[in-house]
């Protein structure tokens, strides 16, 4: 037997499919690669020195102080902001988490504290809320009555998915993805899949119990949580930041530190990849593949099916913006603006009318600026 020939002839199952998948990934990665800039050794120190000199000049000279003062005024937020969150501009209920607990805000502005929880998220039809404490996953109703609690270490990112009659909650305990039934029973480490990155898992909308999560190496895994079968996994996209499903469950968005990646539901090969550094949050508009993205101080609009198109600009602000949440009817987009301590609601139709509300941190108990857990459905 000639070993060389045998090694070359040993059959490998699915070799051609594997080659095609890998070629597609390599092509996409090459198309999106960041050109390596030629480094000029003296450029960084010179730049740092120039910035330092400008700051010193600004601090000691009166014109400089004036400029800094005007900048501070700009970050003070929208000029005509209402002093309280009197009402939401659209139907639905907003879920907000602050250091003082989780809150439900009704359309008329009334708010109810659900308890000292964090990281709240709606059940699929808004009947319940899943919240976390440091070592506990808790399900509560919209009035804050506790339905069940599950003690687990280092819990975060609990997310509820499913239909009216059958639901599941996915959450991370440490870096392990767990799934528990909607009544708090049957908690399992999901299929022994690789460790999860610090990104919330997301359920595919609809009755089928499919969950997507990002691994520590940046791969996206799509898993049938009941059968424990892996539908697909993607190539690695390092430093994942967020995953989002479109309403129809046909598009899955991955945001990483320097790109956005759109997958179809059927394959782990991306439909499109776009290099875009600095995106921190994204949200699909209801019943569409239209995306809103937060990139530093601007909110951009992009069609996930034409990812390479020119992004539209919905809102621009000095300083960094926080999170996004669409109203259930898709007509308003909530943009949080921590630097200005404001919630800004932007009408999605042009011209983009604004409704801004300030003093947000104080209204939710003080401390740090609150986070949004979702703007949910009108049904109770």
């Amino acid at each position, binding site marked *: *037997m*000639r*070993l*060389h020939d*045998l*090694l*070359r*002839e*040993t*059959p*490998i*199952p*699915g*070799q051609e499919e*594997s*080659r095609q*998948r*890998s*070629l597609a*990934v*390599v*092509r996409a*990665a*090459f*198309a999106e*690669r960041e*050109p*390596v800039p030629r480094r000029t050794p003296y450029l960084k120190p010179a730049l740092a020195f120039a910035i330092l000199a400008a700051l010193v000049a600004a601090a000691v000279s009166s014109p400089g102080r004036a400029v800094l003062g005007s900048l501070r005024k700009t970050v003070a937020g929208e000029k005509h902001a209402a002093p309280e969150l009197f009402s939401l501009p659209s139907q639905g209920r907003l879920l907000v988490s602050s250091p003082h607990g989780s809150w439900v805000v009704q359309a008329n502005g009334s708010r109810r504290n659900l308890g000292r929880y964090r990281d709240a998220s709606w059940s699929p039809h808004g009947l319940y809320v899943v919240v976390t404490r440091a070592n506990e996953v808790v399900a509560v109703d919209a009035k804050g009555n506790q339905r069940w609690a599950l003690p687990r270490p280092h819990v975060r990112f609990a997310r509820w998915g499913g239909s009216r009659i059958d639901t599941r909650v996915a959450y991370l305990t440490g870096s392990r993805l767990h799934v528990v039934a909607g009544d708090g029973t049957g908690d399992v480490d999901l299929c*022994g899949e690789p460790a999860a990155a610090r990104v919330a898992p997301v359920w595919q909308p609809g009755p089928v119990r499919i969950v997507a999560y990002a691994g520590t190496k940046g791969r996206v895994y799509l898993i049938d949580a009941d059968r424990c079968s892996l539908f697909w996994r993607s*190539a*690695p996209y390092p430093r994942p930041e967020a995953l989002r499903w479109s309403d129809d469950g046909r598009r899955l968005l991955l945001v990483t530190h320097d790109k956005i990646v759109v997958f179809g539901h059927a394959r782990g090969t991306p439909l499109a990849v776009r290099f875009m550094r600095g995106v921190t949050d994204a949200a699909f508009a209801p019943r569409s593949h239209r995306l809103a993205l937060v990139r530093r101080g601007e909110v951009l609009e992009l069609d996930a099916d034409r990812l390479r198109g020119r992004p539209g600009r919905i809102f621009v602000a000095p300083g960094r913006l926080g999170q996004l949440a669409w109203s259930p009817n898709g007509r308003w987009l909530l943009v949080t603006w921590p630097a200005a301590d404001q919630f800004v609601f932007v009408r999605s139709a042009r011209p983009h009318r604004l409704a801004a509300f300030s003093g947000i941190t104080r209204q939710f108990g003080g401390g740090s600026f609150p986070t949004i857990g979702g703007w949910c459905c009108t049904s109770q």
Partner: protein
Amino acid sequence: MAGASRHERAWVRGARAGSAADVDALFRHHWPLAYRAAYLVVHDAAAAEDIAQEAFLAALRALDRFDRRRPFGPWLHRIVVNRAIDWARARTLRAEISDDGTLERAAARERPGAGDTDARALASGLAALSPEHRAVIVLRHLLDYTPGEIAELLELPRGTVNSRLRRGLDQLRATIGKELR
């Protein structure tokens, strides 16, 4: 061979300049053997796909730092084989912890029967070796590196490479029951 290496240098130059066609050419030329090498070390098609793909992506990411005077193939094979060894070691550890019998099942599946081909017998024989022994056999007899080159690729003493080759082939011969050349 000289023609191939001339082509390869042109492809690397083109890929560095941003030519997608040259990346395709590099991929078509090198991926099949890289994938096969990974598969023969890890004995898992999905893992081999990941390893070959990640190695190729890593090589592309580092293309700007690549010394163009050196051949691309050994550079890629080094990444592939080292990652494959790491993966196979990790799987062995996981199997010990979970005790799920994965390796045993794989070995049982590949145990040669009366109707099995020589290639199947070889796969079964390879599966019985340690990842380190599989790696040197693959580098020597699939990718045609000399023991000196293998020592350089795996950063091992040449004597270790020779002994792994000898013991690996002896064990393979005993498992298969035929002479190997």
